[in-house]
């Protein structure tokens, strides 16, 4: 069985754990950088990206997260997690982890009163997927090796670049576990390749 870590510095950790377990994989709550070595894939949850970044720095998580990416292990960022993965953030000089070749804009749909639910078709993952967007970012530009998986009103809201999966919305807030299942498949494939 594959082990999926959930970065547990702040945010919707419990929901991701439930979704991983609903798909029959083992979930590990990651609070210490050294725990990253125990897992085959990592989910970076929704929450407040500025808060998570402060805690990543305070607990020397950054090197471990970059190494995780360098080791070609799959990483999945939802909402704040997507911002942490992006190589470029609109309005900021520096990215956070900066490993996925996308440019994102924070809070790009507006404030909380503009937060919404919408039905999406996610390429190769799910048709008619009820997505929950909360003060969500979107992908303004995607690099040439990035596959756009879903758009909403012509804005990119889900994408994959090899080992990296990212979305603007919160799969963890619904009972629809299809995108988590897709990520777990990515982790299984990656583990199979690396164990050869």
């Amino acid at each position, binding site marked *: 069985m594959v082990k999926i870590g959930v970065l547990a510095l702040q*945010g919707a950790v*419990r929901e991701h754990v439930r979704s991983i377990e609903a798909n029959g994989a083992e979930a590990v709550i990651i609070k210490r950088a050294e725990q990253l070595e125990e897992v085959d894939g990592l989910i970076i949850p*929704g*929450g*407040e990206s500025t808060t998570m970044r402060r*805690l990543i720095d305070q607990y020397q998580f950054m090197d471990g997260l970059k190494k995780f990416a360098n080791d070609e292990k799959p990483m999945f960022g939802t909402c704040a997690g997507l911002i942490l993965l992006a190589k470029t953030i609109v309005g900021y000089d520096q990215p956070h982890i900066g490993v996925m070749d996308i440019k994102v804009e924070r809070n790009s749909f507006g404030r909380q009163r503009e937060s919404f639910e919408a039905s999406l078709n996610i390429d190769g993952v799910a048709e008619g997927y009820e997505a929950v*967007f*909360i003060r969500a970012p979107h992908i303004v530009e995607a690099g040439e090796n990035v596959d756009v998986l879903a758009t909403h009103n012509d804005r990119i809201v889900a994408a994959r670049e090899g080992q990296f999966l990212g979305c603007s919305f919160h799969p963890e807030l619904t009972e629809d576990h299809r995108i988590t299942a897709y990520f777990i498949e990515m982790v299984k494939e990656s583990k199979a390749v690396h164990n050869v």
Partner: protein
Amino acid sequence: MKTGTDRVKRGMAEMQKGGVIMDVVNAEQAKIAEEAGAVAVMALERVPSDIRAAGGVARMADPRITEEVMKAVSIPVMAKARIGHIVEARVLEAMGVDYIDESEVLTPADEEYHLNKNEYTVPFVCGCRDLGEAARRIGEGASMLRTKGEPGTGNIVEAVRHIRKVNAQVRKIVGMDMAEIMNEAKLLGAPYELLLEIRELGRLPVVNFAAGGIATPSDAALMMQLGADGVFVGSGIFKSDNPARFAKAIVEATTHYQDYELIANISKDLGIAMKGIEISSLAPEARMQDRGW
């Protein structure tokens, strides 16, 4: 596309879990809070201990202050409206505030009815001391709860009482026979359907933060250990000797609430916490937690 759904409103609070929401009265404090790792700020005209000291009627903050705070930070901004004050709430919603606290810290505008929060697009947080109060607020549409504690005292004892009470009552519901739920709903003054949902989920259907009296990193960690989903710190930060350090330390203690060595380290030489008030020395009319019904 749908806005203002329960999932969107409750989900916003889910994203704040494990975090600290700090009271601020201007842009400068808001930036200190954001820099320290706060997940949101609560824009106010005065922190609760100053409201206590000032006396008189406490109302929604001057919109200028709220606006200034919204411009200063990229994290969500919350603001307080008086209990039952429909217009203060609508004004805050129109300004684009991310969450409204229908709060007993302000002087109530209605001594019988809370707001019908289901009608709003903006989500609400409300205080509670027990499961009946929690369930009534959720029934009215609150998307997030917090303990009432006793605001502006720097004394954790009431917040502890409230989180223990609510969680013990939730456990009781979970263990109940179906036949017993209706009578419990009657005794608690709680909506029956909500108690069924709590029994099914094994927990409240919305997050419950700690608030009202948190003054130190250990206080924040204590509330997390007792099952709070996150903490609100009001007077505790900007009434301490060194707000920036206090703010950071409280954020860290909230994340790592079971790491006692770490809490010991971050608590060293923090300077003096807010002075605090012994609850029994408060006159009955000064008890904010008794506001709301």
